[in-house]
């Protein structure tokens, strides 16, 4: 009986790990553009759980700091970047971090290469802290990933 319970729990944890889903928030397509300078961008899609939440920030042992940034588009076609305090994820809603939009910036990131994986701990207002694994990809392919 105990064995069955343990194996059942193991299966549940394996499932949670597979889709990086903890506290009912789900993260998909977590990917980092291989760094070409001191910083690298992290993208993913988050789907909200039962309650509203807010992504407050993140940290990673592979970077000195992780900030939330938004690439802004001016009317004249210029692009810029602004730091963002946090990102709301409504219950059942979707939050897309994508190239040319909102992303997380890994500051002073380690020299990771395509094929590597980087652990990033996300900090949520309600959902606590938990870690996702982001795949490092070639920036040439980031729009098609």
């Amino acid at each position: 009986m105990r064995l069955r319970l343990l194996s059942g729990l193991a299966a549940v944890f394996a499932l949670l790990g597979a889709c990086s889903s903890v506290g009912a928030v789900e993260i998909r397509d977590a990917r980092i553009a291989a760094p070409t300078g001191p910083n690298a961008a992290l993208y993913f899609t988050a789907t909200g759980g039962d309650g509203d939440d807010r992504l407050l920030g993140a940290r990673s042992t592979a970077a000195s700091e992780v900030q939330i940034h938004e690439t802004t588009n001016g009317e004249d076609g210029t692009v810029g970047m602004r730091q963002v305090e946090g990102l709301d994820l409504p219950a059942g809603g979707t939050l897309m971090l994508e190239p040319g939009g909102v992303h997380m910036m890994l500051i002073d990131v380690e020299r990771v290469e395509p094929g590597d994986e980087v652990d990033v701990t996300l900090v949520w207002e309600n959902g606590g802290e938990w870690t996702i694994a982001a795949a490092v990809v070639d920036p040439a392919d980031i729009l098609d990933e």
Partner: protein
Amino acid sequence: MPTAVLLVIALFVAACGRNVASGELQGVVVDPPQPKPSFTLTDTSGEPYEFAAETEGKLALLYFGYVNCPDICPVHLAQIAEVFDQIPEVARDTEVVFVSVDPDRDSRDEIRTFLDNFDSRFIGLTGTRAELDKAQTEAGVPPAVIEGEGDEYTVDHAGWVIAYAPDGRHHANYPFGTRQSEWANDLQILAARKGGSR
């Protein structure tokens, strides 16, 4: 989902993602084509680089960015480098010119190291702020605006790549989001636009 349905979806996605050379430019076409700008900056080896003269008779891709730019700039440059591998015959006669608009932070060495991530043939240029403003104005893009100090700063800059065909004219722009397939298509078309033709 039935396999057949998945297959159909996969084929549809593949078809959308790959525009085979269509004969038409996929970029934002400049019509009529405009003259090539005239400006001189300094390359990563410290030598003057006169844009119009150095790129004469070649396909030239001009982009204003900065090294410390993790979202937009590397994607443009990495895509072009990837497409160069696919069409080496075009790449041979194409000059990719990256102008750093952030002279206070991007040294020549840093620009070189940055570009070598993509393709060591890429040209990197820098200059004084006044020279850079002039180059951007000549090229028809709004001069970059840099605000803030230390690590806390922002750079607003033109987000598109400017393409000049071997005929010396500005034919198209490539905003962020251009796909590799569109680059491959357009570079082949532009490379064939030699002097006297459009």
